[in-house]
């Protein structure tokens, strides 16, 4: 498919823009804006996971570690160098750490990869506690600054920044999917041996995708830090790594709209159903089991009734 501006603006990006416009027109409370921004933060990170898991077929159980790196980089550097510099630093640190970790862990494949990425996530969570002078330990860092736009409040400013970043991430996802890189990645997911024999540079593409997903996770993490105005290790633990994995799976990994559908089911629904207590989490777990066992292509499978993407 050739790239065209018209096709790019359509679909999932239009949905986001239209949804945000309707949302703002309804005059939402600060709490609703807060939830919307959480959805954006996890959505951006999940777009990276969708490319990693859905395009390249790489299972990472530790990506909340990169969210933590992004969040802490933001919280520690914004008092020193301001919002613009802090954001550049977030991208830089998550790019470098993603590249390094990718280089190390992608020597492994299949379940070894799950093991080492799990270890990476647990390591970051533990390492934060190891340097309490810098990171505040398990107590975390309070009063984290945000990207202030004009005279807007924290919620409104972060909402606008988040919306812009979501659109950029979606454009990146779409661009990659329909480029030669995306087709090569799908070939790797389909059959790595065949892909390699056709001259696809597997390792390079895998490390590249891993790095991009780390950067998106880092950006997601810095958005979480901005809206919660507080960072602590428990915000970026194993459960969050699982959440990042679950979002594209719920939507249907590999589909461009998967992160959006997933984030509605996995982030927004649990927030709106708090009155159900633990039952809502039990239901969330049950949905995971049902998807894993009966609907490997997630909600998109139910919507389209199609088996596979590639």
């Amino acid at each position, binding site marked *: 498919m050739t790239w065209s501006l018209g096709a790019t603006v359509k679909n999932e990006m239009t949905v986001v823009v239209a949804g945000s416009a309707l949302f703002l027109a309804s005059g939402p409370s600060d709490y609703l804006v807060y939830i919307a921004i959480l959805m954006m933060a996890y959505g951006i990170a999940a777009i990276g996971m969708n490319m990693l898991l859905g395009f390249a077929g790489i299972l990472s159980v530790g990506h909340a570690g990169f969210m933590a790196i992004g969040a802490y980089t933001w919280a520690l550097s914004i008092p020193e160098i301001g919002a613009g510099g802090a954001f550049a630093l977030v991208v830089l640190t998550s790019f470098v750490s993603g590249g390094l970790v990718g280089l190390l862990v992608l020597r492994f494949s299949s*379940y070894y990869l799950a093991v080492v990425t799990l270890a990476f996530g647990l390591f970051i969570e533990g390492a934060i506690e190891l340097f309490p002078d810098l990171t505040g330990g398990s107590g975390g860092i309070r009063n984290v600054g945000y990207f202030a736009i004009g005279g807007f409040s924290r919620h409104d400013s972060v909402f606008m920044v988040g919306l812009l970043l979501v659109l950029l991430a979606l454009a990146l996802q779409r661009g990659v999917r329909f480029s030669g890189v995306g087709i090569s990645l799908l070939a790797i997911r389909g059959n790595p041996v065949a892909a390699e024999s056709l001259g696809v540079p597997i390792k390079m593409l895998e490390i590249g995708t891993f790095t991009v997903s780390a950067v998106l996770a880092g950006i997601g993490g810095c958005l979480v830090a901005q809206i919660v105005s507080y960072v602590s290790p428990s915000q970026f633990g194993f459960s969050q790594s699982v959440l990042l994995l679950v979002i594209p799976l719920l939507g249907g990994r590999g589909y461009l709209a998967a992160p959006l559908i997933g984030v509605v089911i996995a982030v927004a629904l649990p927030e709106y159903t708090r009155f159900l207590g633990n039952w809502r989490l039990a239901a969330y777990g049950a949905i995971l089991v049902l998807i894993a066992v009966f609907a490997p292509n997630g909600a998109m499978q139910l919507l389209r009734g199609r088996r596979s993407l590639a």
Partner: protein
Amino acid sequence: LSQLAYFVLVGLGVGAVYALVAAGISIIFSSSQILNFAQGGFVMIGGLTAAILSQKTDSFLLGAIGAAIVGTLVAAAAGYLITAPLRKGESDRDLLVVGTIGIAIVLENCVAELWGRNPILVKALLQPWTGLRVADAIVPWHYFLMVGVTVVLFGGVALVYGRTDLGIRLRAIAEDIEAATAAGIDVFRTLIGAFALAGLLGGLAGALVGVVVPISYSVGLPLALSGFVAAVLGGLFRPIGALLGGLIYGVSETVAAGFLPGEVRFILGPMLIATVMAIRPEGLLGKRRLRRV
């Protein structure tokens, strides 16, 4: 030095529990190639059963028997569900791993709603606060009981693998699942057997650990992660290796907590995994495997 001896003895007791959890993880993994994050849930539900039964009947043994039964049943049901796609010939293991996480979440939250959030102890078999005097501290007898029972259970696992029909089928599937199917082995039923065996060990682990750590709905995940470290150390393809992996992890964790700043133990598990992965990815006792291309 006698302080070191104290930490080592306590660590062996803790490590025995990790070893049992790890054995369940690697029994399931070696046969089905599914990393089972629900193993901690089996332990939690077994421990809770043991706690309730032993408090009601005043008998540790009844509690442990109940834990074994409930653990086995819950795990078998989970196995039935999780392995269903394999029965239809689909084999996306990554997705099934997420499915086991889902089962862990379901178990945890159903218990929190139906039973409540209060932690509860299992009634001890031996006088709770008597034990072996080491230096200025006492190692409760229960820690020795944990190690003893664990060693016996691993003997049992070795017997199952060596002598029984289930064990032979499990080994055949672990070796080559397609060849085993071609040879007429009912893979689906055997895998449920693997889950049931893992649940039995998990339930008993819960009964044992519940004497020293109060059991509540949320103990499953941390236990699963510790068991996971132990299983990787010992070799995921080698259930017997879990004993070594568990003891090593338990001892190094308590010794590190005793002598190093408290925070170090948070990164101990990942560091151990990284070391093993760098030197011997198949685990300390694992066999080297050739990759088929």
